[in-house]
């Protein structure tokens, strides 16, 4: 009989080369250099960078790196999901998630090339790690349906909006390559959300308790995002000089 995939793969701890390197892990000199480039480390987030890129093309590179960082994590997450849940879920679901892992790898390559196109490269900017690390998730939350609700349905659902906003911005500012690639990425994200939703429903049919737990996990995820946004909003309101008046009509 064929051995399960997790028995066949190397059991050593997975390592990424280069490893994840968040802003907190930079040396004080590197943090200072990043702050000088972006006006402060707190500006290294997609919401602010998108608006900075609207004013100056240079800020497209850190914006793309923030997306690329999430793609790296996507490979990690879906790759592990394939191996960890192989015995618990139907084989064609494993195949679907494996395809998703491949999609994330493709997005990674695409964004790395985009970085080069924008005159940057992997390593110039650190990783952005939002939300809990895979190892921080309590064992009872490692149920495939709950993971699907959090990542495929909730997170990838938010990614749709992010990709569309970047695509629209790139189109407005004449960054055709960025617009094209993010339109392409978004099409994959729609498939990922659909796949997650389909399998969440299927898994819940067999074990209905999963449906409510999954929905609660999704609601919690959204509340956390809303809280982070509110904090960012308060910070920006407090830090914007009163003489700064935005150009344009805000549309």
């Amino acid at each position, binding site marked *: 009989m064929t051995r399960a995939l997790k028995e066949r793969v190397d059991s050593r701890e997975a390592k990424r080369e280069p490893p994840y390197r968040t802003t907190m892990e930079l040396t004080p000199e590197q943090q200072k250099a990043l702050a000088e480039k972006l006006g402060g480390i707190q500006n290294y987030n997609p919401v602010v960078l998108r608006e900075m890129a609207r004013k100056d093309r240079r800020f497209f590179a850190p914006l793309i790196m923030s997306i690329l960082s999430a793609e790296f994590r996507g490979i990690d997450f879906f790759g592990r999901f394939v191996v960890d849940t192989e015995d618990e879920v139907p084989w064609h679901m494993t195949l679907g998630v494996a395809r998703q892992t491949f999609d994330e790898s493709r997005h990674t390559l695409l964004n790395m090339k985009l970085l080069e196109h924008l005159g940057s490269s992997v390593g110039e900017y650190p990783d952005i790690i939002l939300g809990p690390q895979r190892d921080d998730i309590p064992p009872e939350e490692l149920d495939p349906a709950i993971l699907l609700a959090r990542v495929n349905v909730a997170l990838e659902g938010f990614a749709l909006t992010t990709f569309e906003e970047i695509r629209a911005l790139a189109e407005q500012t004449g960054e055709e390559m960025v617009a094209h690639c993010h339109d392409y990425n978004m099409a994959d994200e729609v498939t990922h959300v659909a796949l997650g*939703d389909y399998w969440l429903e299927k898994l819940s049919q067999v074990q209905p308790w999963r449906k409510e737990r999954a929905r609660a996990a999704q609601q919690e995820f959204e509340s956390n995002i809303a809280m982070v946004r509110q904090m960012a909003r308060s910070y920006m309101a407090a830090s914007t000089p009163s003489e700064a008046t935005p150009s344009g009509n805000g549309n």
Partner: protein
Amino acid sequence: MAYVIDQSRCINCSWCRRECPTDTIHYFDQEVRKHKIDPQYCIDCDICARVCPMDCISHEPAVVPDAQSLAAGKMRARAWARDRRQLKLGIRAYAESQVLKIARNGS
């Protein structure tokens, strides 16, 4: 008139719910795990139909909210638009101040 979501094609991406100016698209409080539009506060703005990646939201002339609900929905939409515009302008002002600061510092 109001909009309706084709439940068999909705993938629960939540985009429509997040964009709805009257907060009338429901998900977490639904018995069936699907997004649903409460026609009472739907003001026919068409935003949900435009963002839906599955094109599964359509106009349903047969569903008509009462005048009072429609007026309440429009009030909600005005507040939403004001809030959203303020947020957008706030982020933009902050970002512009940062770009100017970087330029001044010569980075």
